[in-house]
Each structure stands twice: as C-alpha cells, then as structure tokens.
C-alpha cells in the first residue's frame, strides 16, 4: 500500500517534470517561431481552424451568459429598488470573470479536444516520429503554430464573448424587465472601466496558452489505440478546465493587487 502510494507519487512527479519540460520547450520554440517567417503560414492555418471556426460557439456562449445573469440578478436588485444598476452587475461579471472563463472552457472543449485527438492520432500512427525522422522538430512544426494561434486568438474570442454578453444582458434587461436604457448604459459606463475589460482580455493570453500546451502534451503522450486517444482527449479537457480555474484565481489576486497599488494614482489623475 505504502509502496504503491510512493510509486504513484514518484510517477506523478516524473510526469510533472515531463510536462514542465514540454511546456518550456513549447514556449521557447514559439517565441523563436514569431521571428521565423516560415512559421507564419502554419500559424495562419491554425488561426483559421482554432479562431474563425470558434466564433459562433463563443458568441452564443457569451450571449447566454449575459442573458442568464440578467434574469438571475434582476429580482435581487429590484427588491432594493436598484434595478437600473443591473447593467453594472452584468457587464462587470461578464467582462471580468464569466466571459473569459466560460469562453475559455468552451474553447478547451472545442479546440483542446480537437488538438489532442489530431496529435494523438498522429502519435499512435507514428506520424510524429515521421516528422522527427525527417529532421524536423515536432514542437516547432506541430506545437508552436497551435500555441501561437491559441495565444493570439483566445483574447480576441473573449472580446467577442464579452460583447455578446453585454448585448444579451442589455436586451433581456430592456425587453423583458423594461429597464430604462439610458440609465442602464450610464451606470454601466460609470461602474465598468477599461481596467476591468483589460483584465478579462489579458486572462485570455494565459488561458489560450494553457489550453494549447495541455492539449498538445496530452496528444504527444497519448497511449495507443482508440481508447488511448479518447482518454487523452478527456484528460486534456479536465486538465485545461482545472488550469483555467486555477489561473483565473491567480490572475484575480494579481490584478487586484496591481489595481490597489495604482488606484491612488488613478484617483489623483482622475
């Protein structure tokens, strides 16, 4: 029992080491890839796969987040006579937390699963070994373009989700609850500033990188057979989801501290 626990712990540490090394190599190779022109067509292809085709699902996710928030929050605010503040509540929740996190979770499911399945299949059919055997670094050829595409496009997709969340929340507030639109937007503009939107968008870089690295790693290390690929996809989604939540918490703490440091300066300038 103790021996098995020890062996499992050692294996987990070894796996974490492998993942750390893979992540480090991926980031370094991607940084080099930014300067190499021959990487651009590969990144462009991945941007189409990852970004363009994710726009509809991300917009739908964002819209429903805003609409649901409006329905859930209206009664509480109306009970206090603060229904015109509904826009502040919806918009700050959407742009700072729910928009980025739910968009990232949706991307982890859509893109992460596809990346892991594609690379996992390439792995079990020896296509990744074939890339290596022809003198090409698979991290450069397969991982870096996907990582760069996720890194650049996740923040953009989060902006789409935010936009649709704001529109969805506003439409429900105006059409279903009859809230005065002018008061709604004035209070929203007062309560939500550029910092809040920026924090949400910056999270996108971290979420995108996490989704790409985890999904590619799971694909590269997947076990043989259909079961192996399926299991790798599941593990990729679960790991990405946990990393998104953990990163969200860490970034919330960091952004709060940064805001508190600079807030006095802002009030002086304002």
């Amino acid at each position, binding site marked *: 029992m103790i021996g098995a626990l020890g062996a499992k712990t050692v294996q987990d540490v070894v796996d974490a080491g492998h993942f750390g090394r893979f992540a480090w190599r991926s980031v370094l190779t991607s940084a080099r890839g930014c300067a190499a022109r021959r990487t651009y067509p590969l990144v462009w292809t991945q941007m189409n796969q990852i970004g363009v085709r994710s726009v509809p699902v991300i917009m739908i996710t964002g819209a429903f987040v805003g609409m649901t928030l409006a329905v859930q929050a209206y009664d509480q605010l109306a009970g206090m006579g603060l229904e015109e503040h509904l826009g502040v509540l919806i918009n700050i929740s959407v742009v700072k937390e729910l928009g980025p996190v739910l968009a990232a979770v949706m991307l982890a499911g859509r893109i992460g699963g596809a990346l892991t399945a594609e690379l996992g299949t390439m792995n079990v059919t020896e*296509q990744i070994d074939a890339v290596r055997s022809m003198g090409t670094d698979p991290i450069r050829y397969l991982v870096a373009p996907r990582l760069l595409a996720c890194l650049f496009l996740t923040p953009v997709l989060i902006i789409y989700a935010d936009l649709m969340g704001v529109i969805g929340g506003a439409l429900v507030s105006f059409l279903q609850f009859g809230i005065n639109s002018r008061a709604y937007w004035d209070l929203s503009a007062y309560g939500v500033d550029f910092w809040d939107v920026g924090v949400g968008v910056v999270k996108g870089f971290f979420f995108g990188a996490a989704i790409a690295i985890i999904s590619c790693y799971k694909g590269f290390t997947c076990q043989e057979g259909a079961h192996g690929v399926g299991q790798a996809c599941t593990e990729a989604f679960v790991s990405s989801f946990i990393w998104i939540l953990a990163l969200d918490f860490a970034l919330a703490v960091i952004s709060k501290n940064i805001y508190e440091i600079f807030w006095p300066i802002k009030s002086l300038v304002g």
Partner: protein
Amino acid sequence: MDDTGNRQENARLPGIVEVRNLTKRFGSKLVLDNVSLSIEKGKTTVIIGPSGCGKTILIKHLIALVRPSEGQVYFEERRIDHLSERELSRVRTHFGYLFQEGALFDSMTVAENIMFPIRQNYRVKNWREIEDIVKAKLAMVGLDGFQNYYPARLSGGQRKRVALARAIALNPEVILYDEPTTGLDPIRSDIINELILKLERELAVTSVVVTHDMRSAYKVGDRIIMLHNGKPIADGDADYIRSHPHPVVQQFINGQVGDDDLAVLRMNGSAGSAQFLPRDFEQ
C-alpha cells in the same frame, strides 16, 4: 567478435552506424540487452526475430527516435544518442525511415508528403524543381501520376511505396525499413523487396531492414541478424542463417512452433471446454 558464439567470421566493411552495449528498459521490462553491432556501409542488414523481440526499438535507436537506457549509438563515428533534438535534426537528414504503416501525413497529398522533408530542411525557391524531384521520386517507386492523391485513397502497398519515396526524398545515406512487407500480399511484398534492392543498387545506400518475413530477409539481406529476448543470437549471411544450429533460429526461419509454446496451448484448456452453446448462458 564472438560474444554470442554465433557470429559468422567474415571480413567486414567499416560500420556507418554502430550501437555499443545498448540496453533498453521500459519500466522493469528489458527490451534490448547489451546489444553491440555495426551496420556495414553499402550493405543491406536484415534484423529478424519474433514479434516483440525488440527489432523496431533497435532501429529506432539507430536514428535516436528512442534513447537508450544504457550504451551508445554512433553515426559515422560520431556519438548521437545524447544529442538534443535540435542537434539531431541535421543527423537525421542522413537517414530515411520507412515506418511500418507508412506514417504518411493524411492531411497532405502524396506530393506534399514527399515535399515535406525538402521544404522543412531547405529554403525552396524554385517550385518547378521541387515538382520535378517529387516526380522523379515517385517514378522510382512506380507511382508517378499519384501526386494529387490523398493517402486514404491508396492501397496498403501504394502507401508503403509513397512512404518509401518520401524516405528517399533527401537522398539519405542510410534507409531504415520497419517491417516493409507486413500486411501485404506476396506480390506486393515482392514489389517492395525489388524496390529495396533497386535503391541499394542505384543509390548505393546502406539499408537496415527489420522483418519477420524470411522470404524477404533472404532476398534482400547481405547479412541477417536474429534477435531473441533482446539479444542477437545469430549473425551471418543467408546460408549461414539457414544452417544455423540454434533451435530457436531453426524454429523461426522454418515457422515452427516450439515445444514450450505447444505446452502452453495444451495446458490452458481443450477445444471442448472452450465451446459454448446458447443454453450454457440460460438460467
């Protein structure tokens, strides 16, 4: 060398690829056990042995696709097993590797597959020239005209020939063949054997063929090495292997099941006890 006691004593040419005291373990499983051998330049070396004996792992070591647990691998007297992936990229362009299932990129056409190593390793400016190279390589394997096909539309034998065309795209000095005839009918197998001989003759390459197809081994091999339990147990030309006294070698080359295997079959149940009728599952 007489470490196995079964090495045919002949004058050997210098080794282009060498493994020294190579041991490979996966967890507690020993796959290769202190293997030392030298692949002679310009010759075809065939590695035979039963499934799971470590043949594929051994040739993957030759190009450092797998790293040894112990021992070293040398290419042209330069140690390569400890190099980084980046340093290995250059070394690997001297090799062509035909994978067991071809490992063609299924998202690319046949032409794109063959262009891949060229585009990855050289700055291509003249596309016409690349197309001519692709045409020449495909003509060499008898598949000119298949440039725009996707691998999914090809038969097993055609896929292997395209994979071979891709393997020779960079004019390698060494070609590694992993089970080149497995899964093919006898005619298609013989086409692949003829191709191996043709490439050896026309391109003067060194070939290493891993197979358990003895017909293929005898036809293409200048030298045949038999692996058993991760160790070479016989090493010589086709005649030497045919007359080798080791019972495991004789069983393998003649396709005879051993007494140990038969004993397992006899001990683990009879045909009668393995038959079931629907009523056996009814309450």
